[in-house]
């Protein structure tokens, strides 16, 4: 293991661990129930954000369809717990079902590119919600209730959500440092060129879609267990898909920590905003999206980077964000 030689290097290495440690010891300070709930929700959102970023940020396949996996995770967890399975195994089952669904969705839609893929994912989400509204065993549009014999323990829920975020971030970092991550970036930059270099774009996209779906499914299950009641208009809502997509875009598309930052900001803003200004959250997200696309395509991370005037050190991902946003060039070839 090579240790960093500069202060900044140490900071970069230690900051995530310090953050994790802070989140783990936080309950010792006896925070209020509201704070714990806020952090729980934020952690669940952040998990989905980091997962979306695997497909949307690293591989450049923007999907409006992640509510499907979130909802499937929630419903699978509910049904499994109803059948008497351990909650943690139910979360895993939710992840597995979501991953299986990701194949069903990905097999046809990954034949499409760019905006066509995006539109197809919108169609899939809407269709799945309509179908879920009409399925009898899950109560249709009136929702599903999880009944647990155990007493409600907010700390357990909190730690589960933190574990999910940690898992998502760890998986993302491992992927972004691996050969697989390089393949994803290659696909984002130029699918045909990547194929020429021996990457199979179709199967690579399917794999990363499944990983992301599993993480989102787990997050959906964790949310469902705490909420104890959910319905298709909530977990399968188009709004859920939008939220999952907005977080990484706000934070900085394509970077793991951008997705984390976006998720954290979004979760906290959403929880505080829904309480205080229920009428204005669409306006906020809409204008934020417009501002980010017109002025700072790299999101909050780009803003931070600009403030601290630091070049990114990872040469593999240089330019990759500009490529997604349509103004990049590789080896003099305009993309």
């Amino acid at each position, binding site marked *: 293991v090579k240790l960093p030689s500069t202060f900044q290097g140490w900071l970069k290495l230690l900051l995530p661990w310090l953050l994790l440690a802070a989140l783990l010891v936080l309950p010792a300070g006896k925070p209020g129930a509201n704070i714990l709930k806020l952090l729980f929700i934020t952690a669940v959102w952040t998990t989905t954000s980091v997962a979306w970023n695997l497909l949307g940020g690293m591989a450049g396949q923007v999907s409006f369809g992640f509510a499907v996996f979130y909802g499937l995770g929630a419903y699978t967890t509910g049904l499994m717990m109803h059948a008497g399975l351990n909650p943690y195994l139910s979360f895993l089952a939710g992840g597995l079902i979501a991953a299986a669904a990701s194949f069903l969705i990905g097999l046809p839609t990954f034949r499409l590119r760019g905006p066509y893929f995006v539109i197809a994912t919108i169609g899939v989400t809407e269709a799945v919600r309509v179908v879920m509204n009409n399925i009898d065993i899950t109560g249709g549009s009136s929702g599903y209730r999880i009944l647990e014999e155990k007493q409600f323990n907010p700390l357990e829920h909190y730690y589960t959500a933190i574990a999910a975020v940690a898992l998502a971030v760890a998986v993302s970092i491992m992927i972004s440092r691996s050969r697989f991550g390089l393949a994803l970036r290659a696909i984002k930059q130029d699918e045909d060129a990547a194929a020429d270099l021996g990457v199979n774009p179709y199967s690579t996209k399917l794999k990363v879609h499944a990983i992301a779906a599993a993480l989102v499914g787990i997050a959906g299950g964790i949310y469902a267990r705490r909420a104890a009641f959910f319905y298709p208009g909530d977990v399968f809502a188009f709004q859920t898909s939008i939220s999952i997509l907005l977080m990484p875009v706000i934070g900085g598309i394509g970077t793991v920590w951008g997705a984390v930052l976006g998720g954290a900001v979004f979760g906290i803003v959403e929880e505080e905003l829904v309480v205080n200004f229920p009428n204005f959250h669409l306006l906020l997200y809409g204008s934020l999206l417009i501002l980010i696309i017109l002025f700072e395509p790299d999101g909050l991370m780009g803003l931070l980077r600009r403030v601290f005037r630091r070049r990114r050190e990872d040469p593999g991902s240089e330019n990759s964000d500009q490529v997604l946003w*349509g103004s990049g060039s590789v080896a003099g070839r305009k993309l």
Partner: protein
Amino acid sequence: MSLIQGLNLLIAALLLAGIYAAMAVGMTVIYGVMKIVNLAHAGFLMLGAYFAYEMFERFHIDPLLGAVLALPVFFLFGMAVHWLLVRWLPKSDTPSLPSLLLMFGFWLVLQNFGYVIWGNDDRSITTPRTLWPVNLGPVSVPEVKLIVFAAAVVCLLILQLVFNRSWFGRSMRALIQNPYAARIVGVDDARTSRLTFGLGTAFAGFAGSLLGMIYTFSPDFGRPFLLRSFVIIVLGGLESISGVALGAVVLALVETFAPYVPIPMYWHGWFFYQVSDSLQPAVSFGLLVVVLLVMPKGIAGLFAQKRRLA
């Protein structure tokens, strides 16, 4: 299904196709000229419906006239949106993600304005005509649907004329066919884009007003129609007005007849599955995915391919 019922459904489907075509054509011209997938189209449709509503409630203007008034108002609005937002997008000759997300963000903003001004509840425009039936032999149709159909068709014909016979239409077609060559021969790219965006928005507002005469609406009104518009323009091959009409007819037929067509299925023996009414929206969304996959160049593209093979 009796013959009369079938005839009723067929006429309902054709009337539906008219309004669908008017709805999709605005998105088509914008897509054709600028290669922007205009998700804010849903917002324009919604605003169009509320425009006719306000005109009717406040000034007692007939919603049909309201729809016509929507044309110039939304034209200017569209040009303003283009001037403010769209022209800053990075130039691209293929559809790009920033443009999609930008228009999506703008849609959210419009939706929020809708919620702030008109609130969450469903509204509808009720005129004496709304429920008045017109009898055509054995078939009876609400008068309002006939009027909406006629208005939509007239507008499409006018647009077709503009498209084929005017300089503006010619520059639009040039940009659709080959943006690069069009610029070389001196088509004013920026001006044509601005006007096209205005035109697309005007048609969205117009179609929104017409839709508002038939359906109830809320600020989330445009979403199902956005996806339908997209099905239609993909079916129609993405860039021609006659293609849009064809796509609209196909979608309307599929949507209308889907609940009546038994699908053979096997589960402990053969049986026929019928799509229930509540699942009907899923049909068009499913159709969208199928169409995108099977015929990315639309029905016309399918024919063209056959011809090339022969």
